[in-house]
């Protein structure tokens, strides 16, 4: 096993992390950086619980080697919050009751944010497709979809949800 050092910008903060060459971005975030908001479930890119945004693109962090993320800017659920503690997507999830057990919610939020960055005012069908890679076994999809549509209707409070995450400065 070989450790290598990678440079990341995580939620706006520069991080220099030694990682095992075979470890995934998910392992680097959870185990090396202690950012456990990103969840681990299927490890084969099917459930979406580990979704993060890498240079503006939503990614299953269980399928990306940490080394591949060297130099990237990464947004995790811990980096979503605006100045008032939650952004409009998080606020909408709370308002519609979308978070039940909550385990899939970080991934749902990241996919929602990635969707809204590309499509500011999605249709219901576009939300369903945009979140199709995020399983929810509480099966609260109806309220999750409502939340994304609600968030899209809210003015962007300058918390970045209308823009993809910026690459590292």
């Amino acid at each position, binding site marked *: 096993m070989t450790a290598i050092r990678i440079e990341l910008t995580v939620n706006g903060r520069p991080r220099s992390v030694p990682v095992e060459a075979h470890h995934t971005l998910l392992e680097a975030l959870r185990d090396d950086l202690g950012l456990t908001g990103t*969840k681990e479930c299927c490890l084969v890119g*099917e459930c979406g619980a580990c979704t993060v945004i890498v240079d503006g693109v939503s990614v299953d962090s269980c399928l990306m080697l940490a080394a591949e993320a060297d130099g990237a800017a990464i947004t995790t659920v811990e980096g979503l919050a605006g100045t008032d503690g939650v952004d409009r997507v*998080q606020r909408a999830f709370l308002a519609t009751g979308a978070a039940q*057990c909550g385990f899939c919610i970080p991934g749902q939020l990241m996919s929602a944010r990635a969707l809204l960055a590309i499509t500011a005012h999605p249709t219901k069908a576009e939300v369903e497709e945009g979140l199709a890679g995020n399983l929810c076994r509480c099966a609260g999809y109806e309220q999750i979809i409502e939340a994304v549509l609600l968030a899209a209707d809210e003015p962007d409070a300058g918390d970045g949800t209308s823009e993809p995450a910026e690459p590292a400065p």
Partner: protein
Amino acid sequence: MTTDDHVGGSPARVGGIDRVTGRQAYVADLRLDDALFVKLVSLDVARARIVAIDSSAALAVPGVRFVTTAADLPDPMPRFGPQFRDRPVLAAGETHFHGEAVAAVAADTLDAAEEGARLVRVEYEELAAVFTVAGALDLAAPLVQDPALRPGDPLANSNVLREHRYGWGDVDAAAAEPGLVVVEGTYSFPMVTQFAIEPHAYIAAPDGDGIAIWSSIQHPNWLQKVIASLLHLPLAKVRVFAPDPGGGFGGKQHAKFEPLVAFMALRAGRPVRLVLTLEETFQAVRRGASEVRVRTGFRPDGRLAWRDVEANYLIGAYADIADRTVGKGSYTAGGPYRTPAVRILARSILSHTTPSTAFRGFGNPQQIWAVESNMDEAAGILGIDPLQLRLLNVADRGDAFIPGDTPADGRWSETIEKAAEMIGWNTPTPAGRGRGIAIGLKSGPTTGLSYSTVRLLSDGSVIVHAGTSDMGQGARTIFAQIAADELGAPFEWITVVSGDTAVVPYDQQTSASRSSVFMGTAVLRACHDIQAKVRSMAARLESVDEAEVVVERGAVRIGERTLAIRDVVKRGLGRLGGEVIGVGEMRKDAEPDHPLGGTAAFYEFNATAVEVEVDRETGDISIPRYVTVSDVGKALNPLQVRGQDEGAAVMGLGHTLMEQMIWDDGGRIRNLGAIDYRIPTSMDLPTEMASDIVENADGPGPYGSKGMSEGALLPVAPAVAAAVTDATGAVIRDLPLSPERVWRALRESGDVAGAPGEAGS
């Protein structure tokens, strides 16, 4: 009710902020210094005799600390289980199902543990095994369970763990009545898995002269008893931390690998952690499969005359709580109907498969699939509208529809009629579609015990101790709503503490949709206890007789004056401060003569109506319209009620349309994991989903509430299947209604003629 009512509203979910910010710490998110990582070792066969285990190569891996096998555990092997003590901590001499752990490697890193687990060499001899009802019942079948585990049991030398017989009236005499129409069918329900998005996770650590366990478990107090018993410790020396589970659905009710990590932590003298992979959770929990034969006699006008049900549930290699799901699930196989004579025989049948356990609906979805499908076939044969057939027979409130049990506790016809109205039952079905309706009933808890301690602090804020596991149903929010209203505190000033057996009083379990009724009542009574103390306090402060003081719903009234509880308490506690402590208890004792050990605390009742379209070329079912209506007594939190009902509906669509565990001839699960085992995604939803409730405040819980959360799952499959029959004429008696199965049924029913290439209509 006074102003400021939180009950009946939908305040922000307690724990909601943590859930949307990533701060919610599930077991796998906890980091204990110096913890060892555990990886399980299992065999790629179902049943095998373990000849030898060689750990030397594993122990040579840098970082591997030790390997635990059966030889490292007490002899005889410690066993546990909620019904029978039949599950060994590790496979003892023989494996009984695919994935059963035979050893466990502890190492400094997960990488080292995984590498070590790959290198543990197990010499074994594969043995004959049974994976089906027919195979298990064959007289020549190998026995799954050692008969010595059930001494004196006449069934011990068979694979039938238990037979359950219920009924009333004389079915044979009833069947002799001339002119009855008999409708018969056998309906199968496959093995499906809970698939909580949070894989089960466990941590154990020595804790002073005892042990601490962290588990994503629904029943922390039950786990405490299991660990105390296995380690010969007093209960007070076993501390169970139960952080909010990331989905439970029944699969996290009972102990699985907690005993193993407990033994390993004591051996290591330091914390150990085991986080299952999703594949391992598939090999840890599932729902019992079933084959249910239903024979029903109807009078020509549609009235039920008798029903005879024989249900075979294929449970797994160890009993877990599966036999109880069989006994309780089949008990209501008469349905929510007035039936003069009913005979039910249900068997829990052991097999060399993943131990089945509780799963939302607790044995009922299987029999409801059969009984409600049978009702629909009867409607077709009798020429009676399926809605009318149900309305004709459904029990009225107060009817002793199951003699000796709780009478019908709701106006169930109102629920059915509401669902029918919402789907537009009496309007023409749109061209190309079919409609179906079905109903589901589940008996609530038969016994129960919950305690709560509520502390009103000197500034009027409140700490509620309530041991319910908040696994998505929003239990803590409900308790906070009750306390806010009863004690007049702002909702934001309530903290609800759960998940620590050293701090929170005993709660029997989080299951059976019981927590609003049982723990909710305990919280309510604890608040009433505080109100009584505040009453004394107010009488003392105001120098009046206690009889002149009324305390209710957050306010203290003395004559014409109204005082806030918080102001009275602030004055009453004085300079020393302190708090007012209330205790509450809700108990429903066992009734030894009752076949289930107790009557139903309440019933869950749901009516589901759907419209479907069936693609004749692919067999694919789409659902343009879906309606679910539950009788909840009183919705304590309508937003959460909706989330539970719609979630249950979509989960039900999983086993209805796509989910099944597939086994090969050697008893190995072939679709292990998220790629090959499909559950509903956001692309599988009905186009229009509507949910509604019936509220008549006729439940036993706080403010007239009943339990809910499982009801909306119960009738999903028969409602969809009835709609498929309505659309195509095809009658399908096996789940799931996968495209392949529907496609074949269309050809067999003649709805679609000819070979695949000629399909279409």
